[in-house]
């Protein structure tokens, strides 16, 4: 595949750009943050996402979606990132849909229509520790009656309390640290024994600590194969990682553009500060980092869409690089803005907060660089 967007993708980018800029710009994010919204996003906006076709972007056409790939999902995510538009798009329409595509027909029919309509929100209950270590999952699922009984703790469950269903990764066999013996379950939010404690994060998104205390699910709640959840989880995580990387390209680009604009207008010592070479070189270096991130994210998305054997390696590298570059963009952004960059009134700090969350989501740059090393044979 050529590493350029085709005409359809360019059209999608234009419509996503216009839509986010007019319906969900940074002022929209501020409004929901300042009202202390319990969801951290607008359900009305989620419906509008559906009207645009975004919510079903990865759902097959035969099932009512747009049947597109990770490049297209990434195009939408980049605009979400650029505008800090709060929505359950990454968790629901990218990661959860990727899981449901591997589920049986009955489960797909149960959840796809709500996602397509912008009425359903799905959360991912994967993390257990404070760092992303999916192979360390210890949450237990024991056979019970015609189904399973789930017990354990989950952390960093984004949109948990706003969700209709949680995808829970639990251990049906083996011990923490083993990749065999995991199983994914679709668990109703109101299931008996499931409790949540919501916490607002630094970027104003809502995350939940989830306790599963003998939650009973039927056998048909299993997504994929019993004990074979690692392969499904791998797909979900890779979709989420590529998606988070794409969103970081948007966050980093937004912060970078805002900063470059500031360098061209702010005057000190009777000169526009963008005239200073010390800042010019840092700006040019940052631009190179962001361009690199944009390139490897596109490469990872296209390999995912092709089902290429190297997709996993490139997704790991893309999540790492996007994290490093976006982090540089927001740090340089705040520093180059000077005092005003430290104020809540100015937007650049909001980008810094969003970057921090996205870097952590689905594994940080260090975690993924380590995976790159392992996959490269050392």
């Amino acid at each position: 595949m050529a590493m350029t967007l085709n005409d359809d993708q360019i059209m999608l980018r234009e419509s996503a750009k216009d839509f986010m800029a007019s319906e969900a710009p940074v002022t929209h994010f501020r409004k929901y943050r300042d009202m202390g919204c319990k969801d951290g996003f607008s359900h009305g906006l989620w419906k509008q996402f559906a009207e645009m076709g975004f919510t079903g972007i990865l759902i097959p056409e035969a099932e009512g979606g747009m049947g597109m790939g990770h490049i297209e999902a990434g195009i939408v995510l980049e605009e979400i990132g650029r505008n800090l538009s709060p929505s359950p798009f990454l968790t629901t329409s990218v990661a959860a849909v990727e899981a449901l595509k591997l589920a049986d027909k009955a489960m797909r029919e149960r959840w796809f229509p709500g996602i397509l309509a912008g009425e359903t929100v799905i959360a991912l209950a994967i993390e257990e520790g404070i760092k992303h270590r999916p192979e360390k999952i210890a949450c237990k699922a024991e056979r019970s009656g015609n189904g399973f009984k789930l017990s354990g703790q989950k952390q960093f469950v984004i949109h948990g309390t706003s969700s209709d269903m949680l995808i829970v990764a639990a251990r049906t066999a083996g011990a923490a640290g083993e990749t065999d013996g995991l199983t994914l379950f679709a668990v109703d939010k109101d299931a008996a024994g499931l409790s949540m404690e919501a916490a607002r994060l630094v970027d104003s998104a809502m995350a939940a600590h989830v306790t599963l205390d003998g939650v009973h699910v039927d056998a048909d709640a299993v997504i994929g194969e019993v004990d074979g959840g690692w392969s499904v989880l791998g797909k979900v995580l890779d979709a989420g990682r590529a998606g988070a990387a794409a969103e970081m390209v948007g966050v980093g680009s937004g912060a970078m553009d805002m900063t470059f604009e500031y360098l061209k207008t702010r005057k000190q010592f009777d000169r526009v500060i963008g005239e200073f070479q010390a800042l010019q070189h840092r700006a040019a270096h940052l631009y190179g980092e962001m361009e690199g991130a944009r390139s490897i994210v596109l490469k990872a998305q296209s390999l995912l869409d092709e089902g290429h054997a190297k997709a996993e390696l490139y997704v790991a590298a893309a999540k790492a690089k996007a994290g490093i570059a976006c982090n540089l963009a927001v740090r340089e952004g705040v520093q180059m803005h000077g005092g005003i960059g430290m104020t809540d009134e100015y937007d650049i700090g909001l980008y810094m907060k969003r970057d921090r969350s996205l870097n952590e989501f689905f594994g940080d740059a260090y975690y993924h660089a380590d995976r790159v090393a392992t996959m490269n044979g050392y």
Partner: protein
Amino acid sequence: MSDLESFRAEARAWLEENCPPEMRTPAKGDEDICWGGRNFKFQSEAQKLWMERCAAKGYTVPDWPKAYGGAGLTPQETKVLRQEMAKLGCRSPLNSFGIWMLGPALLKFGTEEQKVHYLNQIARGEIRWCQGYSEPGSGSDLVSMQTYGEDKGDHWVVNGQKIWTSYADKADWIFCLVRTDKTNKYQGISFLLFDMETPGVSTKPIKLISGNSPFCETFFDNVVVPKHQIVGEVNRGWDVAKYLLGHEREMISGMGGDGGVTSIGAAMKEVLAQEPVLRAQMALFDVDNLTFRAHGERFMDEWKTGKAHPAYSNLMKYVGTELNKKRNELIMSIGGSQALEWESERSNGGSKARNWLRTKANSIEGGTSEVMLNVVSKRILEMPGA
């Protein structure tokens, strides 16, 4: 089968039949590279055969027109040919500054007569070229150069000195920036071509920190250059030079490393397993390396379709050369005391240490990293100021 796929099959069959088996193994060092030229000594009959067969087919310069020694391939076909060569492990049949640098400049600025004459010589590997740009007092500030050509009616008499002339002692001809008007800085330079055997031309190799001497000082003492040996118009050589520098930066930017996407970490896993901090550095390097490959691929795809910014190769040059320096720092660290060996058989004559030192020039030659950042900042980011 599409046209491109049938071309692929055709190219593959031709390579299978014509590329000698000895030319399908990786080049071990500089001596395995074919540079062509009047005085070039082929390492083997296979090396000679491979260059000649490619030249006859137009494959030393596949995308040049047939009239100038090329095969007239489209960019897509050229890419396919390179892919097929890579699959079979074929070495480059001919490396030359004529192909990479002078050729593109002649294609754009040369007269028809010049194109037919010089390009065919380049394509056949008959003439080896060197580049006369930098001077002792004119490095990053190249336009301050002083080498002067005095107008004598039907010829110029050139006096002055160039420096960092790559392989000047091995080259047959030089393409050289010469000042032909002392009153005009930018529009007072001409782009001249002349034979290195012309009376008054002499060269002196410069020994570098690597111990090797790929560069020379080149001296001109009353060198006579006929007027028809100019590319472009008189006093407009800076336009040609700038165009050519773009090509040079593109070429050097491809040097992010010869290892491609293959990690150098796997071969050294025992060392890295004992050195967690070094392993972490290596891992972060691999992320940057994979990134650079994807970046280069995207840049080339955008370049071909005219979507890339005209100054973008400056960014690639900066990123690629800095990456290559980092790669060699890591190779030295992983190699430990063994990599320090300078003169020994087991170190292949100190190849690691010498390569490491050689890469330090990457971010200086063809425009320093600092100049690249200036260009990116001003032309792409449109930052204000002089």
